[in-house]
């Protein structure tokens, strides 16, 4: 009987040890770098450039080539697209590359490198890439979201008119010119 009491007692002690303390800290991500301690903002540059390259030299360029009579789609998907059967599926990655791959990362790059000695050069490059991508997108699709994008408080940014977007991009480019003019530019190993 005595043993039993001890057994029950130890069970009680065991269970009253906080459920939560036993599992604390295990969910810290061991696989990916956390945004809390990410410092090397310039490492974002290659990705920005690749996303932009994908958009300007990829699927849409091929489609544009076909629709302007320079190339021909002869088989499978491109045959169908050549005959002007285009579904929304074919353009969604382009939007993802532009907004998530280029603009979001370009603005982060500027933010992360603002105290760097090369801040002005980074900023100029990032602005040019953003303007190039958004200019392409507005040229292709007309009205696109721009003024409210990459803002954590706005889940669904509104569409701006193509004209407004171009105007804002001109301002952005003016900023880029000022940045680059004022910077001591040197070759960047991160720049493709």
């Amino acid at each position, binding site marked *: 009987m005595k043993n039993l009491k001890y057994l029950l007692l130890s*069970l009680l002690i065991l269970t009253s040890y906080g459920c939560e303390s036993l599992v604390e800290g295990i969910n810290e991500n061991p696989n990916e770098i956390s945004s809390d301690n990410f410092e090397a903002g310039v490492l974002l540059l290659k990705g920005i450039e690749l996303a932009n390259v994908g958009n300007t030299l990829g699927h849409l360029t091929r489609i544009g080539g076909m629709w302007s009579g320079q190339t021909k789609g002869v088989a499978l998907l491109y045959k169908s697209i050549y005959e002007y059967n285009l579904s*929304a599926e074919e353009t969604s990655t382009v939007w993802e590359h532009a907004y998530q791959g280029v603009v979001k*990362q370009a603005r982060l790059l500027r933010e992360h490198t603002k105290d760097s000695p090369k801040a002005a050069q980074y900023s100029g490059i990032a602005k040019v890439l953003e303007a190039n991508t958004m200019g392409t997108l507005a040229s292709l699709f007309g009205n696109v979201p721009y003024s409210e994008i990459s803002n954590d408080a706005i*889940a669904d940014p509104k569409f701006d008119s193509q004209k407004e977007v171009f105007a804002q991009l001109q301002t952005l480019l003016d900023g880029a010119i000022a940045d680059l003019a004022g910077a001591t530019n040197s070759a960047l190993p991160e720049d493709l």
Partner: protein
Amino acid sequence: MKKLLLLLLSFLILEAHAQIQIQGKVTDEQSSPLPGVSVVVKGTTTGTTTDASGNYSLTVPEAAAQITYSFIGYATATEDIKGRTTINISLTQESNQLQEVVVNALGFKTQKDRSGSTSSSVSASAIKTSGEAGILNSLAGKASGVRIARSNGDPGAGTNIQIRGANTIGGSTQPLVIVDGVPLSNDNLYGSGSSRSGGVSQQSRLNDLNPEDVESVQVLKGASAAALWGSRAANGVLVITTKQGKLNQRVKISYSATYSLDEINRRHPMQSTWGQGTGGKYSPTSANSWGDKISARAGGADAVNTTGEYFLGQDGEKIYPITTKNAQDVYVEDNFNQVFQKGSYLDHNLTISGGGGKTTNYFSLGYLGQDGIVKNSDYQRFTMRFNNQTFFNNYINLTTKANYIYTGANRIQQNSNTAGLYLGLLRTPPDFNSVPYKGTYFDRNGVPFTNRQRSYRRYLGNNVNPTYNNPLWTTNEQKGTTTVNRFNANSNLNINPVSWLQLDLRGGIDSYVDKRVYFSPIGSASFTNGRLDNEDFTNTEINVDAIARADFPNLIPDKIGLNATLGYNINDRNRKSLYAATQNFLVNSQLQTFTNGVAPFEVSNNTNHVRSNRLYGILSFDIFKQVFLNLSGTQEAASTIKGTYFYPSMDVAWQFTDLPNLKNDVLSFGKLRFAFGQVGVQPTAYKFGTTYETFSYSTYDDGLDVNEFGGGFRLNDDQGNPNLKPEIKTEFEVGADLRFFRDRFTLGATYYKNEIRDILLAVNLSPSSGYLSRYANAGRMENRGLELDYSLAVVKNDNFTLDFYGNFNNNRNKVLDLAGVDRVALTDQSITSNAIVGKPLGILFGSRAARNDDGSLVLDANGFPKLDPQQGVIGNPNPDWRGGMGLRGTFKKLSLNVLFETYQGGDFAERTRFVLNSFGTYDDTESEVTLTKDLKNAAGKVFPAGTTVRGNIGNYGGGDVLLDEQWYTTLGGGLGGSAINEFAINDGSWTRLREVSLGYSIGGEKFRKVTKLGSIDLSIAGRNLVLWTKVKGIDPEVNQSGVDNGFGIEYFTNPSTRSYVFSVKINY
């Protein structure tokens, strides 16, 4: 919970007025001792349990008149004391279902008739006679509300289990598996080396378990039964019990051998009339088979140019450039037979079991070797098990179960994959001979290029890129191996200090290492420079329980009994993976070594560690042995969730036929039940914060991988979320279990309704927000439905029995909320399976035909449908109802079992057929029509009456039109979202003869004397023998994405099988 402890403690202080000592032995009908029998003075709480030898000793008050002996599975006996001091008694086994025993979520036996929640049991014999190599598939069709679907016929392919519909959107839909009270991993990992949409089939880890070792499988369907497992139980629980020896049982040795012959159960019908080419003209390099009519050729050998380049096949065949195609040979059958065969497996099992006075043992060895229906696909499983129970004394016993498993397999590439088997095979024109597939290409200067692949689009092997693999290359040159070494063991220390209390300390470990290799030599489709992937998973799950059970059968004598359980659990799951790949070999070799690779190498490692701990309690009351009430609660904290969560459950069962005068000749037993419970789904690990990741970008088949440009990061496109909660499923069910005509007809009916809140999913965000998705508690979904299980004993006598049995379920699922998101895609191809608000989970979405407001098709000037620029819902793969129906009969020593299964009303996307119509190889495009009037084709070209053209006549509401190459290669067939994929959807209903088995047992006393053997059991069985469905070329049970939440789609998915199984078992 603390109150409960106090209650338990208070019962420790017992008063005893000992006056008479009674002892005795309890045995079963075969005079074997029964340990653990509860021996109680009737009408009191005074009692004890029998020891390992069945002996008991009990001090009873002088006034005591009767003693009751009760043990699960046996009829309770009551003996008058009448002044005796030694009472020996033999208990008789309850054969009727009145005392059917079920194993609960903690692995303890309880009586089914006392449970207020539903569960279905599948017995060891039903598992073995099914003749399936894997335990999961053997459950198909046997329990209502439980859907078991093998993802294809590949040996060892994973099996999808779904209980009462889908219970989560983003998480795993697979139930928790508990073997002997401890979780066993049923992982179905895809990993980095092979994708769901295009790769190889992955295994379900539960199929590692040798079906021979299984005593019973219980499916706990309702939330109330599963609530003890908290956030892991939303998909239900499979409770498996393995075999054990019996005390004082002479050694039993049995050996069994099972041979199965497997063949493809449904083939895609191909055309054999039209040659390779386009526009009715032959071309030996064309992708399509819209060429000339083969029978119209001159015949004889092809005219070839022997002066320049040529291909020298592996067996010396010389292939020269064709200048005029004369040959009329077709190779549809030959090409098929080059890569398909009759598959088979041979399964050996040796078991030894028995027990002495204080120990029981069960030992088994099993080896299964299987060759798939696709050549070079194989599967091997070696298992060894040792189960032991030792009774140290009357108070302490220890059960230890140890199991070692080896599985190895080679898998064949399939699905959306230019290196896949069916993609290459079925796109091959009928007039192309797949042999030779490998050899040396000599260019016009005679320069040799060795080990070249020859495919139908590169019939001279003149390019290292074959575009699509020759199917023989896929089966013979590429490898997709996996080897698994697994060990699981658990121990349960049971302490029985006083008759009413049992303490169980239980620990289990389940650990496996899965080493996978994917190899494509130089010259493979998709991987022109070759590719080697190595991926290793190390998975360990540790589980510890401390459980106290107190039994007060006479809390208020003859009125209320109480059984209380209190337990604590720690569960820790840790998976590490290491992945390395190269896709640039230096030397053309079959060596699977990275030393032959050139940088860049892809290397990654990954850890996934989740821990949870729970405190749980159950109070089970029985009131007048008529009403049974179970209350349970689980308090849980898990590493992936902020805070702790409580999961309550309640169920009540009322055996109303125990009321006076209610039981009669018609109704022999009746039980009403009601249950309520909450269970959860845990979030995926590591979703609290937004991280930085590496990535690649692709717009269409033009991937740019940042690692190939020296490396870099991006802010993850998945936004982190620090406030994750578990998904909570709340379920109500009401039901009745009725038995009529002395239990001859039994009926179980349950209506259930559940709602899952806070469903975790990666919600798509507008890309312009800067993120593509966010993992959040966003969804809400419900399931409701009716479950019926019945059995009817038509004949029941000593020589002859005949039972009909069956089940029915009509689950209705509906997605109620997705936090404002239009659609969450569960799969990723041109037709996707999705979550869409207001629709059932899995709904098919894709490109469709433009329609008018009245639903009719918008037609172009030629009378053909047009592509709607907006995609939409195009089908629902969920069935209206599903069911199983069978009969079981025995005649003397002969036994028969027949089981039909049906799935009615679900849509199925036949994408292979749809795409092959564009390639012109499917038999839909074989026919020739002679027009009786002028018809237009999709391009508006008019074909005058009287012309004979290749194609079909269709009508979309604007009059007859000609469906020819022009239609099938643009909107009416083909790849991507620019064909009208809606037309790939067909009625996917099916009915199949799932199982037929016939067994004969030779045995008896005479036989034993002559042979010294107990018995010999012989059986033959058929699996999947007949399939009735409108789906043309494949078993609609297959699923492109394997064991997945998305379903109802196939795309060059490997086919399914039918099997003939022969088995002999020798029992000593």
